[in-house]
């Protein structure tokens, strides 16, 4: 797509809305969860999972090599109303990176995991 320059300096319709930012609390919750996953702290992770996601979270936690991951990378994010998806990767020397996607949403004032998918070895969450 051609670059039309700075929108404020060109003729034509200007945006009528502003971009929605990731709520800081959601981003913070993602960071905490990714770190817990990297450490393999299954108990703490399961405490942050909604009942419907407990099995998915347990399955994801069982895939990690606890304490060996050194890097965490947020790949992407998106939202459905107030729930936020985070796609991320944790990696470490000599380890196959673990790519995962989680959906976080507030429940009684706490950001909880509503959905967790292990994307490692898959092309995407669309892979059946």
């Amino acid at each position, binding site marked *: *797509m051609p670059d039309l320059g700075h929108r404020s300096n060109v003729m034509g*319709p200007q*945006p*009528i*809305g*502003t*971009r*929605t930012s990731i709520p800081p609390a959601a981003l913070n919750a993602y960071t905490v969860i990714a770190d817990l996953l990297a450490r393999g702290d299954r108990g703490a992770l399961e405490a942050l999972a909604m009942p*419907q996601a407990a099995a998915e979270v347990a399955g994801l936690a069982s895939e990690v090599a606890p304490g060996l991951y050194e890097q965490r990378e947020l*790949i*992407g*994010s*998106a*939202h*459905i*109303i*107030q*729930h936020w*998806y985070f*796609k991320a990767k944790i990696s470490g020397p000599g380890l196959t990176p673990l790519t995962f*996607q989680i*959906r976080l*949403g507030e429940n009684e004032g706490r950001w909880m995991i*509503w*959905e967790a998918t292990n994307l490692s070895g*898959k*092309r*995407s*969450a*669309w*892979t*059946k």
Partner: protein
Amino acid sequence: MEKMIPVDRLARPEHHILVPAANARRARTDQGRGITVSPFDEDFLKGRLHGICAGEFQAMEAAGRTLFDFPDAPWEFQLDMARQVWDESRHAEIYMKLLEYVGSYLGEFPESEVLWSCTQADDPACRVAGINRGLEGLACDVFEQIIRLAQKMGDAVIERAVDYVLADEITHVRMGSKWMRKLTEGDPERYAKAAAFQESIDLTFTFAGAVPPVRIPDRSLSTSTTRTSNSTRPSPSPKKRACSPALPRKRSNVW
């Protein structure tokens, strides 16, 4: 190259969030909302335009795959599919610009695979019945809704941009009707199979009838009057279908 590729073979930027449609619906119901985007959502316009934009991409890919998957189809059919790829790519660009206009961007919301699932038919007659008559027909309904919304907002940018896209979509539905009829000429069984495929897609998108079918004036211009229309059924003495006149739309003078 492989034919009839599964949805996860579609190329997407790594940072895009892709979710199965069932999970996207669950994300809504988990928040106490209905399963479809609702005008009562805080970000209804962004979400709706985003869904359409993602749909335009998948429609572009679907028309391209139809062209590739059926090399023995008539030349004119292939030309129509190529034309549709061109149209859909333009639509995708238009909607990306509209997303920017409303303060969004492609990737703000997850993309689901539901449209691609409608391409999984090994007969070009089924493809055009499902995609052109089913999906593109539904798109006409949604576009009409957005145009009217834009009119109420007094927003000529959205109104006209969507109107330009709608003009193309009507031709795609018409193209689907034409090829569904031509490809099944003299083969009522094949016709019935294509009609059933379209019906299954209509049911998918109306959630097994939970969402009532609509009758939108612009859609009638394509000769596909309702979601369950059988207007392409071969007839010994085919009569030209009358186009219902579109309801007058109030045009904004502001560009």
